[in-house]
């Protein structure tokens, strides 16, 4: 490859591959995230009671809240490891832009953590008694919503770099930012349930993700540069 003309797309993809490789070596983490989400979803019927009519009212919200809460503890790791082992210093002393690496990190987190949850989401949907025609929309909306959670999550992970008790702080900071995803995401499935078009909510969800797709690499890069300079 020519030294002067770096191929950013190639670098981007190779960094995604690296992050996926790292995460695939700790598959246990991914299995435990799945278990966590399953447990959250099981807890709701335990609390509400086995009556299907009651579950129908909350099922979409439960699925989304389960997804969000299960993902949040994993977000910190997106940056934390590479910050402590000095990899981010190496990134900063190499020609690859930090923004590209951070975008690669959020996308690889989406691939390795969120996609498995989404593939298994029909199981959760069946447990809560969702109609069959809702499942494709659930998968679609959760994929998009999950991606924007990763974009916001990397900002959150960068915010708490070096903080005391960062793992407790992260949800407090992230959850208010995530509220629109919950509203639009649940909205998609609620609309399907009552026979309306899911598209308005879906478009809003996509628009929200696009906003964060644009701003998240830049904001988290600012934060990483501050953290590296310490």
């Amino acid at each position: 490859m020519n030294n002067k003309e770096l191929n950013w797309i190639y670098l981007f993809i190779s960094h995604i591959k690296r992050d996926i490789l790292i995460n695939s070596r700790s598959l246990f983490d991914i299995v435990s995230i799945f278990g966590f989400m399953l447990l959250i979803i099981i807890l709701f019927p335990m609390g509400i009671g086995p009556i299907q009519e009651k579950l129908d009212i909350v099922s979409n919200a439960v699925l989304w809240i389960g997804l969000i809460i299960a993902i949040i503890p994993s977000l910190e790791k997106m940056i934390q490891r590479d910050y402590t082992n000095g990899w981010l210093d190496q990134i900063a002393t190499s020609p690859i832009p930090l923004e590209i690496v951070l975008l690669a990190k959020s996308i690889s987190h989406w691939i390795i953590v969120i996609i498995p949850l989404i593939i298994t989401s029909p199981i959760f949907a069946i447990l809560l008694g969702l109609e069959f025609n809702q499942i494709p929309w659930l998968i679609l909306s959760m994929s998009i919503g999950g991606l924007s959670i990763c974009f916001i999550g990397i900002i959150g992970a960068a915010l708490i770099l070096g903080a005391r008790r960062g793992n407790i702080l992260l949800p407090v900071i992230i959850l208010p930012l995530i509220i629109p995803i919950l509203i639009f995401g649940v909205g998609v499935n609620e609309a399907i349930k009552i026979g309306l078009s899911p598209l308005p909510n879906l478009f809003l969800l996509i628009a929200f993700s696009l906003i964060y797709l644009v701003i998240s690499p830049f904001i988290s890069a600012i934060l990483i540069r501050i953290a590296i300079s310490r």
Partner: protein
Amino acid sequence: MLNLKNLNIHRGSRIVFSRLNAEIKTSTLTLIKGKNGSGKSTLLRTIAGLTPIEGGEINQNGVNIFHAKEQWIRKLIFIDNKNGLSDELTVKENLLAWVKIKGWDTNEKNLILALESVGMQKYMNFYISQCSDGLKKRAALARLYFSFFNEVDFWLLDEPTNALDHSSYLLLQNLLSKFIKMKGSILIASHDKESLIKNYETFDIDKLRNTNTI
């Protein structure tokens, strides 16, 4: 020659250097000496562009090195005691990932040669989590070998001899003298009194502090 002009460097709210004026010799090995906390590492991190300058400038041949920061960064290798190795990857995978972000050619032969240069070919499929501190340091130092077939002018090494045994110390000496022969510049921050190679310059921060009132 690196000219440090009126350099102000802060780390957090602590002022590490204020109005530092000094020269660092290049195209040779310069040992940056100083007590713990004297700012050796901070100086290296500043030259590597990691810690921002609050005031002043660093010039090489009259040109501010950070005016074309990307060009500058391409030509240097920075290794400190954090190494930048991922526990979950093997020694070889780590090196490969590093060469990729540098944008260099990643052929198998060069990787093996680089690992051999620090005596790591036996351990190349070890996970970093299985490696001792000395092996980790050597895995990080293997990167230096890539300067022999890519455009690299500067090595910034923070305590490179930490945790190295005698035989790897000799291997490092080898690499250093080979790079000096190629007119490369090496800056090493160390409280190690022993010189790594025969001819070297020193840059004593403690002395500067006494004379310069920085």
